[in-house]
């Protein structure tokens, strides 16, 4: 099968672990009694579910940064757009159970005296339509943005900065209450999804499993893409863009395809994130968030996919622990971690693991690999 052709042993192990986690956590939550030492509270389920969506997001960034050299500092925008599409569906699901009991309008519209539902909210009462939008809206934005940017051969830092401008502009736009997306408060107070209560542990577990499945699928897709000739062209573009062009490849088309795919993956991640954390607001568009995603990938090891997912989980786990244990000092840890990783672990956690393994197996084999870092 095309999807499984290029997964490889490490990939299969990754998928296996993912599958184990996806079964063990719901089991520990649903079937083990609360006083059991291995019981997973809904807090843990929610937390791990969040990590998984971040891992998928990191995967999408790694696909274009690690394999195609496109450093997007605006990927949070696609994540957020997917989240908003999901959020709009969840808002419509509230129906007349909002505080003002308006059957049609979400609460924030009622209390700002909106009279009717804006046209762009139509259709979001349908789950299928919303899911379509989860992929279509980020995909379309990425396509339009990429169409212009890649055709004009905007590369490197310039591209990074305009992706940042994009997410910044979107953040400002979504902050406006006049836009009809709830302004700063965003969308919140969700009740249920597909008729299942979002507050129940069973739904939470289901969302967790869905996130794990999405991550697994996203990983397989990314592996299939990067393993194909298409993926080899992407790496070729990353390492020697103009050479690839002289070979007759339409570099802009390749970049556009990868960028759009990546944006759609980010959108799916956002859509799974929102019901698990219960809120989506314009803060997700903040340029700092997008930079953080890149940091996850760098920490895990770029251009490895598994590393990206791992990095997202590790950094966020560290954040969870530190914000609770050292609330005053966690920024020192986090900042220090980034500096340390760039200086001493340029290929990330996975690179270090790789080196260790290599040393273990072939104590003195000279590395046949080229320079660690691809040209940028």
């Amino acid at each position, binding site marked *: 099968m095309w999807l499984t052709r290029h997964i490889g042993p490490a990939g299969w192990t990754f998928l296996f672990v993912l599958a184990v986690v996806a079964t063990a956590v719901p089991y520990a939550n649903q079937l083990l009694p609360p006083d059991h030492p291995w019981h*997973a509270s809904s807090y*843990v389920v929610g937390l791990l579910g969040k990590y998984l969506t971040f891992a998928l997001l990191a995967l999408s960034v790694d696909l274009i940064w690690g394999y195609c050299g496109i450093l997007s500092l605006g990927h949070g925008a696609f994540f957020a757009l997917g989240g908003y599409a999901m959020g709009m569906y969840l808002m419509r699901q509230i129906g007349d159970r909002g505080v003002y*009991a308006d059957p049609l309008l979400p609460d924030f519209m009622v209390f700002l*005296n909106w009279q009717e539902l804006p046209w762009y909210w139509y259709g979001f009462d349908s789950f299928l339509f919303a899911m379509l939008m989860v992929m279509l809206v980020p995909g379309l934005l990425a396509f339009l943005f990429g169409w212009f940017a890649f055709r004009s051969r905007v590369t490197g830092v310039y591209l990074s900065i305009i992706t940042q401008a994009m997410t910044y502009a979107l953040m400002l736009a979504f902050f406006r209450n006049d836009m009809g997306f709830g302004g700063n408060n965003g969308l919140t*107070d969700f009740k249920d999804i597909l008729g299942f209560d979002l*507050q129940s542990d069973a739904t939470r577990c289901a969302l967790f499993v869905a996130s794990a499945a999405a991550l697994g699928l996203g990983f397989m897709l990314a592996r299939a893409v990067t393993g194909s000739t298409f993926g080899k062209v992407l790496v070729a573009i990353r390492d020697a863009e103009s050479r690839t062009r002289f070979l007759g490849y339409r570099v802009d088309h390749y970049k556009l395809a990868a960028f759009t795919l990546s944006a759609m993956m980010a959108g799916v991640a956002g859509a799974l994130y929102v019901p698990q954390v219960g*809120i989506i607001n314009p803060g997700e568009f903040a340029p700092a968030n997008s930079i953080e995603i890149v940091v996850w990938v760098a920490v895990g090891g770029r251009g490895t996919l598994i590393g990206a997912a791992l990095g997202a989980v590790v950094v966020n786990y560290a954040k969870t622990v530190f914000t609770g244990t050292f609330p005053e000092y966690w920024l020192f840890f986090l900042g220090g971690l980034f500096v340390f990783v760039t200086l001493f672990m340029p290929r990330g956690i996975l690179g270090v693991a790789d080196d260790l393994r290599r040393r273990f197996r072939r104590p003195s084999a000279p590395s046949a690999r080229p320079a660690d870092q691809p040209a940028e």
Partner: protein
Amino acid sequence: MNRPAILAAATGLLMASTALHSAYAQETIKVGILHSLSGTMAISETTLKDVMLMLIEQQNEEGGVLGMQLEPVVVDPASDWPLFAEKARELIEVEGVAATFGTWTSVSRKSVLPVFEELNGLLFYPVQYEGEESSRNVFYTGAAPNQQAIPAVDYLMEVEGVERWVLEGTDYVYPRTTNKILEAYLKSHGVADEDISINYTPFGHADWQTRVSFIKDFGAEGKKTAVVSTINGDANVPFYKELAAQGVAASDIPVVAFSVGEEELAGLDTAPLVGHLAAWNYFMSVDTDANYDFIDTWLEFIGDEERVTNDPMEAHYIGFNMWVKAVEKAGTTDPDAVIDAIIGVSVPNLSGGYSAMMPNHHITKPVLIGEIQDDGQFAIVYETPGLVVGDAWSDYLEGSKDLIADWRAPMSCGNFNVATGTCGGSGS
């Protein structure tokens, strides 16, 4: 160790550590403190964390509550709204706190609200806000719009004779709602449409040249003009600096603000701003013994003579004391018992009176209006004769004028519609 194994180990570790945590026996009563210590809101919220630590320490010196010591649990939600929800869940589910004091922005409160309702926690929210909410699990110890905005506008109309209004706000829900209420209120007092200008700027807006210049022009039409500012946090300092730079004096165009307190002024040279106003329920300059005691304890605790006190700090002071009293009344920290016990509880506030918890989970407060002094303090120029009851649902908004909140049995409803006689919407 191969790659996936690391992931598996990390997951296992996480689950194990959280499981261990909750297994501890409860010898103390844990109190959650949920304020941002980093990010954009740290500037305001860090002080509230400190004041909570001080109040808890004080209470412990007096023997704690129910004979048990209180144990503060501080977490940092880092000005990140989804993180607020996660941390709230951590506090209640993992740490098992009896009550949580925290959040500042509306969005952070909205973010944690479902968590507190689901896990039946208690949240004391200390900041003035837009109203339009009443939850069984939340106690609103800050001002509702009728405890701040409307008295301030009344004052300006009566004392200063203001006839023309600029409602200048940051574009988020609190200013939007407050200005909607004020607009309706002003119109009901015969202010014409063209005498009201409403404008919104983004968060952290730093360049106020155009707006201040507009305000000057708007005020130059011969009618006494005032600005009602619901500008948030960071944007205030550049706004006031621009007012001073363009020479907008309080005697010409007074600015009354609802989000500017002593903490915000601490970052400003207030000499050019003397006479601009703020409406709160507490000022550091309140001339009562209770207040002086509070200030002395605070300065001692924080170890810095330059620090100030402000309204949200008083709100925590009131809220904390109410919770303590309610727990003692109920004889347990069980949330349901405390929720029942706390209504009607009345504790001294710092302005010389008593504040009581009302059935709508808002409290009674006096409304004070202060003018900025050159030492960064406010001189109180007006005080409502009696206490004002916080109104969860505004009478001036179309959607909410028929709604009331009453959490006493048998009604137990946060949004009861008196027109239809039903407990609408979520009902939770």
